[in-house]
């Protein structure tokens, strides 16, 4: 007997290697991927009862190949034997390592012809080894819907007629950017929805970290890959303090920092420092550097806002992303007072339109500036526009608390938070 958790971990680890081996041998990514899924399900059932085989990878490749063969025998009209034979000769003879296969699969699943909404589930299934049901649960959609989304994504990969190989050097940088973007989105999806009533959902942040580790192991000299992994670890370190037991969000300033995961912070910090030494700064490294500065502050009051502000300025120059400008407004306020932050918001103009985060940031800055009346209006505006239930609760409560306080504070000075 083997413990189910261990078996599950091993299966997910081996999934991309099995798929890589099959695609190398037979071609046909889409069909091979189905066969691997069947083999994984068969393994989960059989290994739990009879224990793991001596050579789990060999077992899975053998079973998946057999399933693929069954599929072709069933499917005699459309795909003929010579079709299969032709794809054999295409498969390269070089026995590449499982690491490379994982990477090639990542590039295929995050192909630029796929939207993130297609690339994400395909990556989780084909590279992450998750079942369709697990992916569906993670995104709160019916299993049949997710199955359809995955098979459409596979059809598109097939249509791109890409060989099973690493992208050529001239398109590699851009392709890598797509891979990192997909991993970043998977992480954020998990991070935003974590805990509370959603505990049963698949741990997407954990999956994103696992996949980022795999890409990082295959490409140790790519500082942006390392930067992204560091960013994930440094954010994930705060996870235990981010939500209360009832699921409500806790802002950074109010988090119990003793709950932060010190080993993740140490690992993430070391990774980002190593990456920055390669002198090819990119946006994930800068974001990770900012996260590291937050994580290293023992108290919120110790935060090095001047350095964080200069990192946001750098990030803004690199990306031109108005969301970064919004974060710069917060950092400017913390470094130089709320007036400086409000000035940055004026600079932002309407580049973010009526976005709830603009209202939320303005609300916080007005509150700091002592303008409770307008802060309440902005908190309410933000609450009315957010699409996140927990954030809505937070913003509504914030407005209410401020209204109560400003009614009571006609006599008393506002409370100051020292710890």
């Amino acid at each position, binding site marked *: 007997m083997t413990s189910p958790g261990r078996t599950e971990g091993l299966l997910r680890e081996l999934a991309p290697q099995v798929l890589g081996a099959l695609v190398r041998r037979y071609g046909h990514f889409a069909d091979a991927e189905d066969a691997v899924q069947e083999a994984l399900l068969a393994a989960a059932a059989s290994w739990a009862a009879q224990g793991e085989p001596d050579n789990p990878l060999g077992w899975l490749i053998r079973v998946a190949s057999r399933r693929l063969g069954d599929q072709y025998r069933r499917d005699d009209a459309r795909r003929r034997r010579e079709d299969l034979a032709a794809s054999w000769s295409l498969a390269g003879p070089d026995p590449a390592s499982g690491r490379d296969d994982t990477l090639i699969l990542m590039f295929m699943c995050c192909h630029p012809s796929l939207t993130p909404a297609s690339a994400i589930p395909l990556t989780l299934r084909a590279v992450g080894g998750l079942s369709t049901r697990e992916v569906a649960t993670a995104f709160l959609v019916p299993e049949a819907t997710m199955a359809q989304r995955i098979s459409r994504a596979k059809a598109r990969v097939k249509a791109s007629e890409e060989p099973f190989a690493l992208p050529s050097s001239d398109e590699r940088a851009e392709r890598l950017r797509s891979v990192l973007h997909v991993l970043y989105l998977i992480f954020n999806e998990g991070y935003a929805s974590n805990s509370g*009533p959603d505990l049963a959902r698949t741990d997407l942040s954990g999956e994103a970290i696992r996949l980022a580790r795999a890409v990082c192991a295959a490409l140790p000299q790519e500082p942006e890959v390392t930067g992204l992994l560091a960013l994930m670890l440094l954010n994930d370190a705060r996870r235990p303090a981010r939500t209360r037991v*009832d*699921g*409500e969000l806790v802002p950074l300033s109010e988090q119990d920092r003793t709950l932060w995961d010190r080993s993740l912070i140490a690992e993430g910090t070391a990774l980002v420092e190593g990456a920055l030494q390669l002198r090819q700064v990119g946006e994930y490294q800068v974001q990770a550097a900012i996260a590291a500065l937050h994580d290293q502050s023992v108290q919120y009051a110790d935060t090095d806002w001047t350095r964080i502000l200069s990192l946001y300025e750098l990030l803004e120059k690199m990306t031109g992303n108005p969301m970064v400008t919004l974060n710069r407004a917060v950092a400017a306020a913390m470094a130089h007072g709320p007036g400086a932050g409000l000035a940055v918001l004026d600079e932002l103009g309407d580049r973010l339109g*009526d976005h709830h985060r603009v209202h939320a940031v303005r609300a916080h800055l007005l509150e700091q500036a002592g303008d409770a009346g307008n802060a309440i209006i902005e*908190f*309410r505006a933000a*609450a*009315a*526009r*957010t*699409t996140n*239930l927990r954030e*809505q*609760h937070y913003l*509504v*409560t914030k*407005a*209410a*608390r401020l*209204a*109560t306080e400003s009614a009571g504070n006609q006599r008393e000075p506002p409370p100051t938070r020292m710890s």
Partner: protein
Amino acid sequence: MRFMLLQSYGGVEADCAPMSEWAPEDIKAHIVFQQVLNRELTERGELVDAQGLAGPELARFVVSDGSAPAVITDGPFPESKELLAGYRLVDVERAERALEIAAQVSAAPGANGVPIRQRIEVREVLSAPDPEV
């Protein structure tokens, strides 16, 4: 049998200020009430789905004849009170049970803990035809 229990913004009968004007502890009590109710319904095996919708500020109306570009209307809408605020989908053994749940939902606590007496629209979901009949 499945029932949709629908709540709109205007369906509050008690003389009730919007939630953003309640005291913080009243907001908290309201949220906890919803969470506890959902947990109870889940434990009884009745809750299928419960969702709150983003506010009327983000609502848009779309009309199309299938060929010309669709006509998309942004808010603010004069009839925003009639917009749906959220719903629960429950699977119950008797219609009476759906009404009972609706009554519980309606009596959610509001400002100063006074029940908001929200009007709940109870609608049975049409079931699929039995192919063997």
